[in-house]
């Protein structure tokens, strides 16, 4: 076994909180973790990094008792422990936010925060006190919501914040956050970092998984990198250059070509899709939107500003109560996603677990699904055809999976995202809506996807990209739509597009209204 120890002292340290050694875990022959050492000290933020499918989430699940390790030892505060299950982990003082928001949509926010430890009076749950505590807890994250409402009535971002608040509140000594920032915008991210720093100063050990390298440098003290289930190394953040980090993660250096500039607006084209006076009461105020072939329209806005709802409206999931659509000048009607798909539309949804993946079906079937649906049930794609398609996209998008017959729910989060992207690319759409497309995707893949987007646009694809990453929007948009409080409040084009301008547009007359 090749073990790389890069300048780290392997002998036990006095302030070690959690120490896992030689962790091995395989799934049906796939070595997801192959002799990984990982430790967390008191009062540190420890970033756990690696490509999609590197084994980060698996490591977390082993540490918190979701999976039993095949071998290896875990010590907590110097004591060997065998974590039985997540409940046990919680009792040991480990609070965790798992990668996909794992809360209970049918319970209220307060119940989600306090399930299993509800305050009681005379043996009965004291709902009033619980809700009071919940409100106080969420206030620390600037969230003011009805904690008695069902969790499912809130956007995924709010749910993520609730999950974080819950984990933080539960963590006695260790806090683990698996891609907590994936659907948060910069304001929420800053808030979260504030909380993390405070906890660190109180002596907690925090494990932080993310694909945003800037965030890594903003908060973390140490970095551990995994690749293909193996430990690449652990370093002090201050000692590690970004390029070195990237090459540690990818095992190669990232091609400079991806550091492209802003896309130029394509030449005016007849091929375009226009929505005019489009809107739906209590959802999105009426707006006009035109997307030409080869154009990338970025959509920016705060949480709950109506971006996802705009996407649902354009794709025929929610029906507009006013407005018209024309495709290449011809008026059309969209009453369902099917209609939209027939016109060459595609939508990568924001909530990939609920609206994206069909978990029990294989990678191959998931990739072929939309194309098959468009062809109709009579004209079945042969297994060979599906396999070819899937193989092509697995290669093009570098989807990490043992084979394409694996149920997609067993893939790592980032790879699931790529499968859904592949599903839409397979239909060769002319207009693609991506709602938070790079959520949970690693740096390497991120660059590849942006490259791919650019290439497709050159071939005439029109694109609408919703993202909370303003840098990302700046990187590829030809125009930027800014939403505010469910109103399409403005548009930036050409040279106007810059991080600052977008921030300003978002923030305009946006006081404490949230």
């Amino acid at each position, binding site marked *: 076994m090749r073990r790389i120890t890069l300048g780290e002292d392997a002998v036990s340290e006095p302030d070690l909180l959690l120490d896992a050694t030689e962790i091995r875990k*395989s799934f*049906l*022959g*796939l*070595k997801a973790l192959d002799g990984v050492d990982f430790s967390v000290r008191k009062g540190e933020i420890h970033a756990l990094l690696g490509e999609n499918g590197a084994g980060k989430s698996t490591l977390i699940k082993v540490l918190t008792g979701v999976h039993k390790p095949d071998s290896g030892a875990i010590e907590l505060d110097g004591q060997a422990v065998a974590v039985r299950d997540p409940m046990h982990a919680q009792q040991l003082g480990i609070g965790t936010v798992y990668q996909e928001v794992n809360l209970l949509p049918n319970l209220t926010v307060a119940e989600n925060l306090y399930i299993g430890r509800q305050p009681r009076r005379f043996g009965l749950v004291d709902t009033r006190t619980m809700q009071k505590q919940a409100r106080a807890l969420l206030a620390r994250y600037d969230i003011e919501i009805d904690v008695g409402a069902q969790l499912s009535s809130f956007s995924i971002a709010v749910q993520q914040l609730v999950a974080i608040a819950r984990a933080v509140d539960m963590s006695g000594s260790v806090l683990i956050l698996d891609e907590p920032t994936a659907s948060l915008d910069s304001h929420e991210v800053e808030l979260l970092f504030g909380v993390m720093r405070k906890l660190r100063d109180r002596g907690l050990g925090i494990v932080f998984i993310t694909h945003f390298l800037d965030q890594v440098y903003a908060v973390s003290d140490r970095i551990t990198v995994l690749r*293909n289930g193996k430990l690449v190394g652990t370093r002090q953040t201050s000692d590690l250059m970004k390029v070195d980090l990237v090459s540690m993660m990818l095992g190669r250096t990232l091609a400079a070509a991806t550091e492209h500039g802003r896309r130029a607006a394509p030449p005016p084209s007849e091929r375009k899709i226009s929505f005019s006076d489009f809107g739906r009461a209590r959802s999105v105020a009426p707006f006009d939107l035109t997307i030409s072939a080869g154009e990338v329209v970025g959509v920016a806005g705060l949480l709950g500003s109506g971006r996802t709802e705009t996407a649902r409206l354009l*794709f025929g*999931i929610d029906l507009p109560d006013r407005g018209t659509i024309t495709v290449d000048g011809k008026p059309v009607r969209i009453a*369902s*996603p*099917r209609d*939209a*798909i027939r016109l060459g539309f595609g*939508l990568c*949804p924001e909530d990939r677990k*609920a*609206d*994206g*993946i*069909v*978990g*029990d*079906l294989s990678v191959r*079937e998931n990739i*072929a*699904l*939309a194309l*098959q*649906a*468009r*062809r*109709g*049930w*009579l*004209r*079945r*794609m042969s297994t060979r055809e599906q396999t070819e398609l899937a193989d092509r996209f697995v290669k093009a998008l570098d989807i990490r999976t*043992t*084979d394409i017959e694996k149920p997609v729910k067993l893939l790592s989060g980032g790879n699931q995202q790529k499968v859904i992207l592949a*599903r839409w690319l397979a239909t060769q759409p002319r207009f693609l809506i991506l709602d938070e497309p790079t959520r949970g995707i690693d740096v390497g893949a991120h660059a590849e996807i942006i490259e791919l987007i650019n290439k497709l646009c050159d071939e005439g694809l029109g694109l609408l990209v919703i993202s909370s990453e303003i840098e990302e929007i700046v990187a590829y948009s030809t125009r930027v739509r800014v939403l505010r409080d469910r109103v399409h409040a403005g548009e930036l084009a050409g040279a106007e597009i810059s991080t600052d301008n977008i921030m300003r547009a978002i923030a305009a007359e946006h006081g404490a209204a949230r």
Partner: protein
Amino acid sequence: MSGLGSGLRKAAPQLACLAVILFFNWLAFPGFFDLRLQDGRLFGSLVDVLNRGAPVAILAIGMTAVIASKGVDLSVGAVMAMAGAVAATMTVEGYSLPVVLLSSLAVGIACGLLNGLLVAVLELQPIVATLILMVAGRGIAQLITEGVIVTFVEPGLIFFGTGSFLGLPMPVIIAAALALLTVLVVRRTALGLLIESIGVNRSASTYAGINSRLLIVMIYTFCGFCAALAGIIAAADIRGADANNAGLWLELDAILAVVIGGTSLLGGRFSILMSVLGAIIIQSMNTGILISGFPPEYNLIVKAAVIILILLVQAASLSGFKLLLRPGAAATARKAEA
């Protein structure tokens, strides 16, 4: 196709259960496996198992599709009664066989359509939506027969229950043909994939452009058709329509067959042939009970014991299989990595 080998491996727990039950049947009645040819027709307990299992197998075929789409159809027993009632009364009134068959099947299709619309359009929960017809349907069947067992003597219709073809009883032939045809339609077109997809995640399927409403209506309609077919066979078998008792509680048997066949009640992956196998397992058990000579008070206990046995065998073989699979899977995984 390499499908056969992997199919057999997947069916191993069920086949093991079947073997165990047949073995006990043989213990109870040593002549269980005897077969003889008489008037060009096979006779024997094994044939009986297939013959008696045919209606449940036919129900299970339709039920499989419904369950795969994350639904359930409680009305199949009542639809059987209705279809049988229509067939019998029309025969007695002198309609010709094709008209009788078509009307009877049409009744099943209409019932299925109704269920489908309630589930897909009104978005009622499948169990309640079909509960309505389960209750009312039997009433309608009785209304048709006016509470009487309508007996008929028309040989054409009777042939579907007691005739034989290629040496096998007609119900067996019909069930086998339906199963093969359904497998063909479902797997040679994309229907199978689409059904599994909406069963696993309806929202995601809608996003992917699947017309889940239409598909659900189609599935329930097909299930209604199957139920009507089973109803015709059941009526033809006893040369009469017994609106009160035809198909009574058979919905439970059909669901049980599907579940024993390995299709999850939560929807998703399904296998028609495995459900048919499930129906055969259930009937082997029933036939075994009949010939065992136990007093009937023990019937239900034996039934419960067999179901528990099936569960244990499935659970054990599942974990056993994981162990067996490991080395092989590891090899392929390594290849994929390289």
